[in-house]
């Protein structure tokens, strides 16, 4: 299910360099300006890819973790772990 405000945060970060810089220095303050649910706020603060991924467009997700400074190899490894979990759940 798409989370509008999470998507909006990611979209704004992609378009606004100043906001992205502010986000890097104080994530919680920027998140606080959006109607982000508490569990999503927690997931953002913990870089919890698994909770965030199903709620936002995959391209925005990639941009977001680039802005977060996560190396693409690590981002991909976290996504692949989700796939392994999915496959394990389906036997």
């Amino acid at each position, binding site marked *: 299910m*798409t989370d*509008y405000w999470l*998507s909006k945060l990611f979209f704004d970060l992609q378009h606004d360099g100043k906001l992205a810089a502010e986000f890097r220095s104080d994530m919680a303050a920027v998140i606080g300006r959006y109607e982000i649910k508490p569990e999503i706020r927690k997931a953002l603060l913990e870089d919890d890819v698994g909770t965030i*991924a199903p709620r936002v*467009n*995959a391209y925005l997700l990639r941009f977001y973790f680039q802005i977060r400074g996560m190396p693409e190899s690590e981002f991909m490894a976290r*996504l*692949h772990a989700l796939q392994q979990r999915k496959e394990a759940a389906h036997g």
Partner: protein
Amino acid sequence: MADLVGVFAASHGPIIARDWETMPTGHRNKLAAGFDEIGRRLKACRPDLLVVISPDHWVNFFISNLPAVCIGIGEEHDGPPEPFMKKVFPHQRLKGHAAFGRHLLETALDGDFEPALSHRLKLDHGTCIPLWRIGVDIQLPIVPLIVNDLEEPMPSIRRCLAWGRLLRRAIESYPEPLRIAVLGTGGLSHSIGESTMGWIDEEFDHNCIKHFEDGQEERLAAFLTHALPRTGNGAHEIRDWVIAHAAAGSKGFELIDYFPSPETLVGAGFASWTVGK
């Protein structure tokens, strides 16, 4: 009347720009050869304007307002806003072609299509990586046809075929003797920001190529309608190839090159269509 003088398609991907200088030489050369061949053929067509069919990577549109299709009808457009594009394609403004853009829009509305319109689009890496690598003359006017290939639900493949036919009709009914070329960008298979990220589905890619070569629209539509939900999300950009294909009359497809490019995370495809009457 205007003439359709060339139809082409090429992959794109941010890493092509970001890592162009640092990727393995052999791989860069293979990518360069595909783009160069399109550039050579495009130049030989001597186009007066280029219609570029591409997705928007969350640059112009957002989920608060997301058109299925948008036609750029402005006198000019903005160059790519992505930081990784600025070093390789530093053009801040690209020429549009307002008169043909408007004609395409009116032809669409007259044909019961309802695209969005924009008098000024930002042309992101989806448009500008191919323009950069094929070495397009920066003075060549561009008419962007932006298709939602990123966020579901997306236009059906059958509708994309209809868009291609409509584009052809608009070109052939344009009253000035312009030479118009078409470039579809994106694909082939890739997977971005999802749990299969990095997957290049070669079987899907080879099947796409086979269906373009066969030229049977119904079979192409049936294949893609079934296969797209089962492969990586980036493959949805094949819609841009489908529109180009139908603009060419769904025949005359020629594969210039295809190879999986894990270095850039895409199934790299380069193609042109022989344009018949």
